[in-house]
């Protein structure tokens, strides 16, 4: 168990059953009064922010979170299934939990899955993923309209802006941190 004296930025604790990350912390003590420990915490499942003030004597359960390397297997409805390569254990995550990460999930992609207790609460992707363009309009040579990008759909169904010279069937590199086109894979 943690006590209020252990509170600091970066601490992970369990509140009302959910894991929270302490993102801001201060110690306040008015006059000769009792000390108050002011915290701002982020829910590690849904990302919501919470302000809480504690007094000395309170205690907290540490949230043990584990990052496990897994492989993305398949999607069924809005459920995404991942498998631990060592234990063959499978976890299922909903589309809502994955957020934008779903745009880059191609079968067999290796990702880090954050597990809290039995529950998968999020994934970390590689910074760059390679995805094949499945649909984009032909760039008309001599186009002088001045457009320096055009929409393209990749094999996961994600649509992004790419440079005009990218053609259907090409493999491109996407930055998963901002969802933007990075470069094309030659050859």
């Amino acid at each position, binding site marked *: 168990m943690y006590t209020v004296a252990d509170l600091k930025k970066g601490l992970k604790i369990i509140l009302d059953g959910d894991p929270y990350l302490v993102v801001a912390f201060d*110690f306040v003590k008015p*006059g000769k*009064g009792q000390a108050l420990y002011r915290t701002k915490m982020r829910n590690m499942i849904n990302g919501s922010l919470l302000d809480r003030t504690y007094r000395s004597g309170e205690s907290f359960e540490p949230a043990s979170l584990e990052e496990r390397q897994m492989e993305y297997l398949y999607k069924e409805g809005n459920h995404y299934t991942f498998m631990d390569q060592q234990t063959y254990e499978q976890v299922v995550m909903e589309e809502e939990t994955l957020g934008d990460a779903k745009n880059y999930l191609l079968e067999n992609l290796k990702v880090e899955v954050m597990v809290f207790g039995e529950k998968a609460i999020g994934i970390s992707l590689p910074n760059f993923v390679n995805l094949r363009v499945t649909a984009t309009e032909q760039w008309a040579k001599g186009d002088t309209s001045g457009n320096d990008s055009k929409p393209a759909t990749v094999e996961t169904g994600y649509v992004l802006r790419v440079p005009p010279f990218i053609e259907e069937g090409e493999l491109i590199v996407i930055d998963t941190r901002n969802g933007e086109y990075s470069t094309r894979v030659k050859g």
Partner: protein
Amino acid sequence: MKADALWLRARVIKAVRDFFWERGFLEVETPLLIPANAPEEHINPVSTLPSWQLQTSPEICMKRLLCSGHRKLFQISRCWRSDERGSRHLSEFTMLEWYRSGCDYQTLMIDCEELLQYVATACLSENRCFVHNATKINPFSPWRHISVQDAFTQFGQASVWDCLRKGLCEEILTSLVEPALAGFDTPVFLMDYPTELAALARTKPENRDLAERFELYVGGLELANGFSELNDPVEQRRRFEDTNTARKASGQTALPLPEPFLNTLAHMPESAGIALGIDRLVMLTAGIDCIDDVVAFTPENL
């Protein structure tokens, strides 16, 4: 910490020292390691040797010097309070305390005004304003005096007496009153605390529920705590014992009583004393909002 903050810190301390020397105060040094502090419900001393503690404040020894006839005293010394660490707190910090016999807390409030004006003149070049959280506070404009009762009503929409019963005083003070005080462009005295919140202060002659205690706020930052000293040894012992009862009730250990102090208290003339955080005064002078940036080292980087 930046080199210029270290210079400014030295200049502030020199100005404070000059101020009291010019006014005929005796600068004293009293032991830092003592057998007993004045017990406080929410202040925990740091113990080093068995049955000895580092001082949480030099008040016990300073008051004993008043009992032996000294009339105007000041001291700049290190104090220790266990587990106090935040953007405005260090477990080891520097405290200025001064004491006067033959007067009450009103005189100390005048001292505060003159001291801050002196420091501003000596250490601040351009507009002579202190700065906290980007707010300028001018010590040369008329200072504000607000009673604790009025502050709770006006800024907290609550009665201080009701908050006392419900144990809500700290929350109302830190979340509503202090932020409101941060809006003033001059220093503010919050004064006349409920007696329960002033363990060593004399009560007001006309109202025993209120004590002659004040806190000085500059830009919402609590800078100093002063009061007319209680010099009734029987009442003082009773309050210390109440403090220990409250400590035990909240699962803390009782603290030893400073017996020699209690034994000489009957000889203390009418007096008033005040403690002012030097680190915070440097913060205000430098316009720095975090205490870490006005000390040479924090405990974390030792």
